[in-house]
């Protein structure tokens, strides 16, 4: 259930809700982190549930020492009131056999809050695609949202997620059905949304496990093409800033905890190593090395 962290209850009427599905590559969750940090959204409450594995950690969006020690929980809600946008971030996996209960809790909250539409950011295994699914982005929309967004979809030229046979080649007469392998609760949310007439959309990318940051950027840019949250494209450019008060500042990346590579102290402080490591991932980056090792991923809008 939603518990507000402010003194006054949060108001979500007519807001757009963006939420991730815990899915392959954690792309939805990375994309939501990107949205929260880019739009500098503020936390308004917690989604306190028994369906997620408990975890706790310090502020992943910290910009400095002052806000570094803010505790964060597995599911939190952030808003950008000027954009009428609310975001639910989910940081840990759903406990086994509790997916249905979690979906029910989500649906109740969505209905009670009065969100005008819900967008689920998700992903699916790239290796389990049909021949017709060889391009990346797919969408799904419940009938109630489809009616309102038909023109926008036509302009964007997105492809709807295809229905594919359950056992290709084996049972040719079987009816094609919706399959989102590796997508977690995505399919469940969509079918529930259709059944209960919720205005819900799913935006997903086909991807594989690995460094999924570029996938997160791609997904956010697609979302932005539709919702127009930002003026420009979200891209990656490094700024090497002059050193701040804390001389021990190291790199901050938009990784989840298990993606941080262990480097020796020497490697971290060697500018050539850093340059090469980043260039490998983002060949189009240019950067200036100032006198220090304080690196900040800044999003150029």
């Amino acid at each position, binding site marked *: 259930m939603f518990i507000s962290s402010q003194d006054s209850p949060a108001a979500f009427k007519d807001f757009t809700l963006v939420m991730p599905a815990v899915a392959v590559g954690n792309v939805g969750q990375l994309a939501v982190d990107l949205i929260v940090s880019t739009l500098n959204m503020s936390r308004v409450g917690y989604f306190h549930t028994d369906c997620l594995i*408990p975890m*706790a950690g310090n*502020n992943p969006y910290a910009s400095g020492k002052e806000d570094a020690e803010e505790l964060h*929980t597995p599911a939190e809600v952030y808003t950008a009131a000027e954009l009428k946008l609310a975001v639910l971030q989910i940081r840990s996996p759903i406990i086994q056999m509790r997916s249905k209960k979690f979906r029910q809790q989500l649906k109740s909250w969505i209905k009670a809050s009065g969100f005008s539409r819900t967008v689920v950011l998700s992903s699916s295994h790239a290796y389990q695609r049909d021949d017709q699914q060889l391009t990346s982005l797919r969408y799904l929309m419940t009938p109630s949202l489809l009616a309102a967004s038909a023109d926008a979809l036509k302009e964007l030229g997105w492809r709807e997620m295809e229905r594919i046979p359950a056992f290709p080649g084996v049972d040719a007469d079987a009816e094609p059905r919706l399959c989102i392998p590796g997508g977690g609760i995505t399919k469940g949310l969509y079918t529930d949304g259709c059944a209960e007439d919720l205005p819900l959309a799913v935006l997903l990318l086909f991807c594989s496990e690995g460094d999924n940051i570029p996938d997160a950027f791609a997904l956010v840019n697609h979302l932005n093409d539709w919702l127009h949250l930002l003026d420009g494209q979200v891209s990656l450019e490094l700024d090497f800033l002059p050193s701040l008060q804390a001389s021990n500042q190291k790199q901050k990346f938009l990784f989840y905890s298990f993606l941080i590579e262990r480097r020796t102290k020497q490697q971290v402080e060697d500018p050539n190593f850093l340059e090469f490591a980043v260039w490998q991932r983002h060949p189009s980056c240019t950067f200036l090395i100032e006198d220090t090792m304080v690196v900040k991923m800044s999003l150029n809008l």
Partner: protein
Amino acid sequence: MATFFGEVLSVYSRAVEEDEEELEENEEDEQIRRELEEKRTVHLHWNPEVSELLRAGNKVQCSSFILAVGHNAASFLSAYILASANWDTVGRAVAWNERSRSGTGPSGEGSACVFYRHKDEPAVLICHVTCHIAEDQLFQWTEKVFGYLQTRGLTVTVLSDSSVADYKTADYMCSSSTPFLRSLRSSAFSDQPVCPSLEQPNIITGLPAAVLNHCQVHSIAAVVYQCYSDVTGPDSITMDKYKPVLTKLGRSIQVDSSRSTDGLCNFVCISEIQSNLYI
């Protein structure tokens, strides 16, 4: 994943499969599942005095709740605080799961979540947790325990053992730096922790995380002191690392700081017999 030596390792993958629970269950399956769920329910048993109080619709008065999760944390509290013999056992929590030792069934006597209350300061409660509480029981355990406590003015302190293998850092960690303490606190905790804060991208999981989440969401002052050690079993050097916490706890309860590190060895001997592989 098979390795060169023929062993099979289960590789951790972030991939998320669609649920099996969507498949239709017949009545027998459903009954089995229900019975299993009931068996895994967390039960709290209080002594007669506390039970009477709770039956009357009151909550247990508590200004300081100290939770020790793990053998080293529990042994530390036993050595420095509980040894003064001013403590009563007031209750225990039973949470049966697949890792419970046989002989400690749902109503078993060998339960390892014990609650102690100070005789002279009844508002101070200590809980030792040395058994495994499964993922699906953590939330329930926390809600049930805190449901019985009066939470206004409550401060929660959690001591938790962890392996240094779970600690992620960009710097090389040499063996002389372990064991070490790190802290995490809820927004309502205004005091200064006795050690540095847990750095990104590290997180805590398990019972300490469940308790801290509950306190954060309900604006209860709470701090978790996580001790990262390279020794997996009970170890006196690891236990000793919690000593700075005594300065904070000593305000509300009497602590026996005269006890030396050697005294902690009494608590260490039990598990060493099992591991004779590398004698």
